């Protein structure tokens, strides 16, 4: 099994030049036809038709073969240190092999061994409320410290918060992309992407260089849930991609965890509706996930044994009950504006609190 270079190249050709879908490629591989598809003899064509149907066969037969281009692509893959794992390879993750429509090939960038870890997918809205985003961050941070590898999709909002939390907690994270592993989408997550490809793993079933297509992302979601042992949804609106991932998770027999959202926000209506159907999925703290997954809780480390002065304590006590406005803290502490400003900066720097929008402050 050490040299399946021909098969790898055949798959790459099918993906890039014959534009055959990954489902058909998998069928061809299972039938042992993938390598013979290129420039198929009439006898082979019959077999192809039997496996993937007339239309796909037609496409394969009429597809051109640009060897130079293929060579260039493979060189690129090598140069960028992208690894290929084919369905059937020893390295191919068991968790994906057993799902309904496993990807024929995984292109990876980073630490492949992460796919063997215990994993939790964290997915949700691209435009979360600040509560949703904070919950995503906090759960991912705690659970990454419990040595779970956090799987997500590198999207804006919840996804990015989950990846970031895992990295900042010193944990591991896997990003499953709907583009080639060498394409950053959305571009504003470039820094996050670089960090994950260095310290974590980036995975995709699409050939390197593949641009974002709308239908890639729902397809990609089956890999997220497939790779994960359980799926956590901090917040999702109706028709959200996270709900698709939840569907896959249920089909694949994965555990589903949902954090409840406010009944007033549209942005959490999808996850709330799902929660109504699956009431057992509700989690209220990372401890619930830890218990359900039978994890060993990381020894609890106090952020630090910081001495808080009276005002700092007043403020943290108040913020534990929810975000508070500057004016409220002013009335609470009876400090001067300038003093409170300075105090809040100090607390921010100590990592106790954060500044939210519109002069609101929240506890970390």
């Amino acid at each position, binding site marked *: 099994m050490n040299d399946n270079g021909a098969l790898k190249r055949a798959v790459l050709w099918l993906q890039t030049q014959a534009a055959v879908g990954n489902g058909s490629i998998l069928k061809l591989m299972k039938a042992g036809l993938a390598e013979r598809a290129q420039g198929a003899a009439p006898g082979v064509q019959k077999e192809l038709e039997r496996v993937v149907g007339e239309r796909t066969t037609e496409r394969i037969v009429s597809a051109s073969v640009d060897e130079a281009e293929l060579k260039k692509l493979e060189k690129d893959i090598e140069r960028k240190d992208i690894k290929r794992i084919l369905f059937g390879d020893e390295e191919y993750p068991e968790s994906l092999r057993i799902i309904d429509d496993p990807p024929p090939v995984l292109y990876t960038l980073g630490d492949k061994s992460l796919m063997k870890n215990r994993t939790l997918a964290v997915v949700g809205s691209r435009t979360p409320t600040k509560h949703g985003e904070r919950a995503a961050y906090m759960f991912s941070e705690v659970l990454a410290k419990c040595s779970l590898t956090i799987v997500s999709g590198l999207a804006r909002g919840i996804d990015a918060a989950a990846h970031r939390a895992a990295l900042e907690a010193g944990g591991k994270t896997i990003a499953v992309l709907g583009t080639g592993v060498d394409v950053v989408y959305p571009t504003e997550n470039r820094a996050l992407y670089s960090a994950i490809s260095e310290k974590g793993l980036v995975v995709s079933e699409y050939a390197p260089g593949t641009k974002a297509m709308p239908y890639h992302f729902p397809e990609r979601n089956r890999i997220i849930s497939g790779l994960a042992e359980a799926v956590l949804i901090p917040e999702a609106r109706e028709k959200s991609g996270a709900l698709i991932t939840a569907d896959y998770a249920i089909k694949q027999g994965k555990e589903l965890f949902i954090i409840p959202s406010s009944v007033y926000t549209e942005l959490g209506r999808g996850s709330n509706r799902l929660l109504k159907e699956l009431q057992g999925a509700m989690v209220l703290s990372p401890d619930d996930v830890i218990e359900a997954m039978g994890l060993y809780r990381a020894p609890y480390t106090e952020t630090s044994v910081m001495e808080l002065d009276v005002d700092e304590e007043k403020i943290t006590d108040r913020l534990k009950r929810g975000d508070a406005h500057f004016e409220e803290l002013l009335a609470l502490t009876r400090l001067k504006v300038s003093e409170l400003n*300075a105090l809040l*900066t100090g607390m921010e720097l100590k990592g106790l609190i954060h500044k939210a*929008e519109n002069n609101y402050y929240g506890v970390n």
Partner: protein
Amino acid sequence: MIATVKSYALDGLKGYPVDIEVDTQKGIASFDIVGLPSGAVRESRNRVRSAVRNSFFDFTARRTTVNMAPADVKKEGSAFDFPIAIGFLVSTEQVSGDKTGEFVMLGELSLDGSLRRINGVLPILISALQAGYKKFIIPAENAAEAAYVHGAEVYAVKNLSDAAAFLGGMLSVDPVEHKIYSASAAGNRYGADLRYVKGQAVAKRALEIAVAGGHNLIMCGAAGAGKTMLAKCIPTIMPDMTFEEAIETTKIHSVAGILDPAEGMIKTRPFRTPHHTASLFSLIGGGSKSTAGEVSLAHNGVLFLDEMPEYNKRTLETLRQPLEDGVVTVTRVARSVEYPARFMLVASMNPCPCGNYGSSDPNKHCSCTYNERKRYIGRISGPLLDRIDLFVSVDGVEYDELRGAGEEESSADVRKRVTRARAVQRTRFASDGIHTNAEMNNAHMEKYCRLDPGSERLLRAAYSKFGLSARGVSRILKVARTIADLSGRENIAAADIAEAIQYKAKEFSE
């Protein structure tokens, strides 16, 4: 006979003398004006004819030629009506020419012979005085602004017949009495006072710091949060204008023709609020007459741009140069004119196009996409943002029940602190050629923003925690310097740095 009368014209804020020669001969009736007259000047013959007749002088058919020297500069405006009329009267020997040479004359004529007010009297008087001219005859309506030009002997007359009688020695007119400048109680012109603004403690403090150090300021918040109300309070906490500042500002307003004729002097700091549809020329100055723009009208005061991202991007970009240099140079075909434009920029903006982003009200849900928001904020360019030291969120939340019956501080009290902080800066920068902390460059900051080890540590921690840029750090340093000045500290303390960090720019760009 040829008569010569002195008048004055303006090129921007600088004046230059114009000699008006009037020659009348027997011959076919005509009235020609030469020496590059513009439309308004050419039309002056009609006003002059009527005014002369209606002042009961003789205007029978003669061949009249008016020459305006220097002949190669275009003459604009209506201020030459009066000197032309006097020239005609002298030339036709209806008025004695003995004394006319002593005066510089300015004024527009009405058909009935009365003198109308003209624009730019103050800058004309000041530059003519510098050029050695001492005596002036101007319209009575312009008397108020002439009162502040000490050393000039200004005679304000109501109409052509009075002027003729005065020149002929048949009427005695007292020169305009000089007035001593005193800044009028700041703010009462605007009817605003911080006392009436409830809550908004963070924002008020930001205003105080901004004004004390001359820092430009952005207020970010949803519509109706009170940004405009806060901005209107800014002039009420600014220190009084000095006489020099008042003169500088009045000159510009005088040329622009927006000076209150009764007041004669701008005594409160201007607060200009151009609408966001303002064109480039109206904001910066220029156009066919090289007029002063809003940035110059706001000289020594505040330029308030409400809903800054709504302005045309190119228009906003042109603000960079005056923000940097404190002057604008308006260039047109034949000449370029310089107007001072040292103003404090105060801008307000919504956090996103719909205005609800980050709102704490669960019923106000932001419907903008990430890209819409980014595009909206992206309309203000990085280089422009670099010139804005303070950022503050403004929101409409009130905490009356929490505060109890506390009295809000009045503008006058805040102004005292601001004035003190400005005085400290004036002394400090006496030999540096700058006025405020906001104007400091790197060399100044090295000299005046020394940090003790504790503050240094704090700034370093903030640098890595918040991912500050080098420019971000220097903005924090400048603001901290102002905060220290406000509390009368000679050295910047850690608390000053910490407070300044609360007003740092939010991450506007990715």
